[in-house]
């Protein structure tokens, strides 16, 4: 069965490094991280996190709306999506989907003993976003742990290929909160310094917050990339520990490769998950080796942003698509010496390289994995 080509045309992101794609790329190219030291009531001890500045957020939001009833996360999400809608000119009609990815949504709106406010429901959050822009279709909320952001692109592609929609605005967002900080801390998973993915000196995760947005569409005009294959396959191993064999990630990549019709050897660059926990990074290295992807340049963007949970897969795709467009491999921040048992080709310094095929991967709690392959839209020119 021949499926329609599905494209990504417009992108945006709201992060500690900037409120548009250009400022983020400039910061990354200059080796600047969005992670900084935090000392506040969210954790009993000082910690590192990638946090969006409140004053900057309020100032930026005031430009698009004077309605102060939105939560902090909603403001980030609305700001991420706003220019994507504006610039694309695509109307939120009956053939246009809103796909929203988040893990914890407005979790900060929970308070002990009180009833659940509407916005604590993920669909409540999604409705607030949908109503702001006047979407007429019911939002599709993807909440699948740390793969949600990249899975959202796969979901949008599948729904368009199935003929349900012509366009899908995909937006993702998650916040740094006491809720997730205390949880990762109870997992003994937090790094005492900014995270160092794949490094022998890594000591765990740094959390971050961000929102990102893209337009997924069947129209090729303005295309940055074609989404040519995807897979989201479970490890069937453990609900929190990454698989020792990388089984789910291997199968997810194989599924994406099979659909794309390209071989593993054609992949030019991998934007991987790289949370900097010992077991995650090891699992990825094993999976990439099993597939013969060990020589392909790979980075984790967690060193720039921390782990932005449900936003991470989409944010990292937005950055990786720019890398592909500019034929640039960005250094994997925090990497110094090899720290995984099977060698992989971690990008140590930012350099030029022609990139035509990009593989984006993510893995998360519940044993989930997602892999999506993108082809440069002007491939061959």
């Amino acid at each position, binding site marked *: 069965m021949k499926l329609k080509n599905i494209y990504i045309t417009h992108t945006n992101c709201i992060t500690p490094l900037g409120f548009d794609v250009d400022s983020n790329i400039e910061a990354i190219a200059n080796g600047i991280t969005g992670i900084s030291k935090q000392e506040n009531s969210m954790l009993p001890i000082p910690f590192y996190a990638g946090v969006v500045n409140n004053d900057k957020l309020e100032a930026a939001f005031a430009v698009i709306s004077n309605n102060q009833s939105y939560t902090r996360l909603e403001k980030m999400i609305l700001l991420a999506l706003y220019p994507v809608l504006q610039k694309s000119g695509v109307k939120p009609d009956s053939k246009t989907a809103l796909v929203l990815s988040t893990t914890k949504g407005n979790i900060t709106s929970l308070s002990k003993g009180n009833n659940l406010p509407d916005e604590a429901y993920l669909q409540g959050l999604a409705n607030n976003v949908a109503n702001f822009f006047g979407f007429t279709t019911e939002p599709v909320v993807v909440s699948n742990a740390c793969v949600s952001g990249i899975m959202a692109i796969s979901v949008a592609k599948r729904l368009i290929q199935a003929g349900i929609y012509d366009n899908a605005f995909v937006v993702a967002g998650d916040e740094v909160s006491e809720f997730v900080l205390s949880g990762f801390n*109870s*997992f*003994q998973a937090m790094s005492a310094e900014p995270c160092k993915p794949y490094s022998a000196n890594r000591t765990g995760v740094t959390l971050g917050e961000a929102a990102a947005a893209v337009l997924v569409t069947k129209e090729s005009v303005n295309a940055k990339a074609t989404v040519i294959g995807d897979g989201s396959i479970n490890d069937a191993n453990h*609900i*929190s*520990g990454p698989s020792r064999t990388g089984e789910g990630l291997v199968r997810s990549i194989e599924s994406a490769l099979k659909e794309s019709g390209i071989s593993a050897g054609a992949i030019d660059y991998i934007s991987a998950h790289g949370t900097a926990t010992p077991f995650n990074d090891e699992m990825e290295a094993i999976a990439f080796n099993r597939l013969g992807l060990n020589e392909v340049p790979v980075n984790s963007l967690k060193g720039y942003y921390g782990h932005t949970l449900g936003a991470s897969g989409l944010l990292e795709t937005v950055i990786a698509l720019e890398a592909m467009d500019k034929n640039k491999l960005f250094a994997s921040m925090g990497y110094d010496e090899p720290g995984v048992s099977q060698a992989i080709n971690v990008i140590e310094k930012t350099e030029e390289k022609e990139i035509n095929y990009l593989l984006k991967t993510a893995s998360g709690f519940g044993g989930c994995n997602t892999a999506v392959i993108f082809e440069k839209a002007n491939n061959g020119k």
Partner: protein
Amino acid sequence: MEALKQELKEKIIDVLNLEDIAVEDVNDNDPLFGDGLGLDSIDALELIVMLDKDYGIKLADPKEGKAIFQSIETMAKYISENRTK
């Protein structure tokens, strides 16, 4: 020491929801992880919380847990030597 061991067995069964296991089934030297009680990595993290909450012991390095949580015997010994409550 015997009272502490008994207390630990009861607590572990309760905290880790070991529905099919009775206090009498757990021997002092049985391995808690792997083939013994079959505990896993989340259980180990939960035992670290239990040390803190019930005995006032904060592990500086979670890797220490491996030696401490070998058996009821090793746990009881460590707790009796290090407890602050």
